[in-house]
């Protein structure tokens, strides 16, 4: 906890609270669209041959061992939609907790066909970690101490979300060092061809091919290794962005570049994660400077 204090700036406390008051509402509005996407997914599942449906993880085995009935599905959809809007105004822990559990259930629907993706996790974790953030707004806080405690709740909740990227970075560095030390002749992420190989395989998986112009760009020496190293570092330090505003903008920009590259060139579509990052980390206080003075 001492390490985190190195990055906490007391003068950013109010910025955290103001920014979060917007992020909280936007997360719930975005959740409505996300639920719309889940309705689409559910009907896709209904159209597929029933024999292909096979639960993978414990939550599915316990609660969705077969495709749910229309009645059950739409009951949960209606309650979730209601809670998305209701929790904007009533931030009680119990309502936000129930909403999180329902979203958790809804997210498992898509992943019963031999693959459980991590695409929805960041979205779910954003709901999970913000359950215990106090429900007051900045105007009703009357002491420095309350402001400090409140803003630290927001920091730690964001840390819970962003540590996922830090873990991703940690494994990448660990594997990289392992490969450099024990299998230095094999290809690793710092090899000249690494990004190009990854892109070629990603395209071929979808029976597509990398364009000739893009292949030429992959041939440019050093920039891909430098870009990879930059992204790995951004991932590794991501959790610190939860504690410090200035760092959070660097982390946000870096992670968005990372997701955008993957969306455009690697067929890895972490749209939901990108939107959640934007919702949580955009500096809304800049729009509303008056309240800070």
């Amino acid at each position, binding site marked *: 906890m001492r390490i985190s204090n190195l990055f906490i700036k007391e003068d950013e406390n109010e910025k955290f609270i103001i920014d979060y008051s917007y992020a909280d509402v936007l997360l719930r509005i975005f959740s409505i669209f996300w639920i719309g996407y889940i309705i689409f997914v559910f009907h*896709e599942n209904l159209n*597929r*041959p029933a*024999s*292909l449906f096979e639960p*993978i*993880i*414990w*939550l599915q085995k316990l609660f969705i061992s077969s495709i749910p009935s229309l009645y059950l599905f739409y009951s949960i959809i209606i309650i979730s939609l209601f809670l998305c809007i209701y929790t904007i105004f009533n931030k009680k822990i119990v309502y936000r907790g129930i909403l999180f559990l329902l979203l958790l259930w809804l*997210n498992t629907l898509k992943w019963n*066909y*031999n*693959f*459980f*993706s*991590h695409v*929805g996790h960041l979205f*779910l*974790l954003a709901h*999970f*970690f913000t359950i*215990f953030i*106090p429900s007051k707004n900045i105007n009703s806080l009357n*002491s420095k*101490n*309350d402001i400090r*405690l*409140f803003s*630290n*709740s927001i920091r*730690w*909740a964001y*840390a*819970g979300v962003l*540590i*996922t990227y830090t*873990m991703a970075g940690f*494994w*990448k560095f660990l*594997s*990289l060092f392992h490969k450099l030390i024990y299998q230095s002749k094999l*290809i*690793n*992420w710092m*090899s000249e*061809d*690494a*990004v190009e*190989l*990854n892109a*070629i*395989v*990603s395209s*071929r*998986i*979808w*029976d597509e*091919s990398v364009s000739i112009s893009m292949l030429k760009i992959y041939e440019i020496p050093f920039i891909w290794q430098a870009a990879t190293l930059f992204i790995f570092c951004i991932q590794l330090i991501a959790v610190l962005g939860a504690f410090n505003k200035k760092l959070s903008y660097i982390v946000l920009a870096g992670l968005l570049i990372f997701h955008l590259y993957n969306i455009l060139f690697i*067929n890895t*579509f972490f749209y939901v994660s990108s939107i959640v990052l934007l919702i949580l980390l955009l500096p809304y206080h800049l729009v509303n400077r008056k309240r800070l003075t």
Partner: protein
Amino acid sequence: MNQISMSYYYKLRITQGIFFLSILLSSISFLNTKFGIKEFYPFFYWKLYTQPLGNNYLYEDYRLYGVTIKNDTVRIKNKGYANFNQDDYYYFLTGEGQKIMKNEINLNYHKKRLKDFGEFLAPNYSEYILVKESFNPITIVKNPSNYTKEIILSTK
């Protein structure tokens, strides 16, 4: 501290608590996966893309093939289908292929699934086969048909 401040204090402690709990659960997820148990959803441990794909100049993926009545074999491309986009196609067949390769299967169960999948994507074949294709990323760029095929499962 007054009552409101106390409540802020406890809420902060709980949020810190679930932060460390989630790290613990992610670690359990990781250990679970090491021992062949599934992840502790949604606390994944994020060990993703630690090596570039194709890093040993070899990649294997799976494709569906249809066999006509005249015994011609047709490759049913992963081009995206109604209700099965390209990711769905790729992951479904990879899952089937890997289970069959590991022999952890009830063969008739997987034959039925492959037949249902095939008839759904591309009807009118008399037989469907699951094929493992292996390729070198460097050579496949120059010649997209430069890959080897191995039949993993047939619906017959």
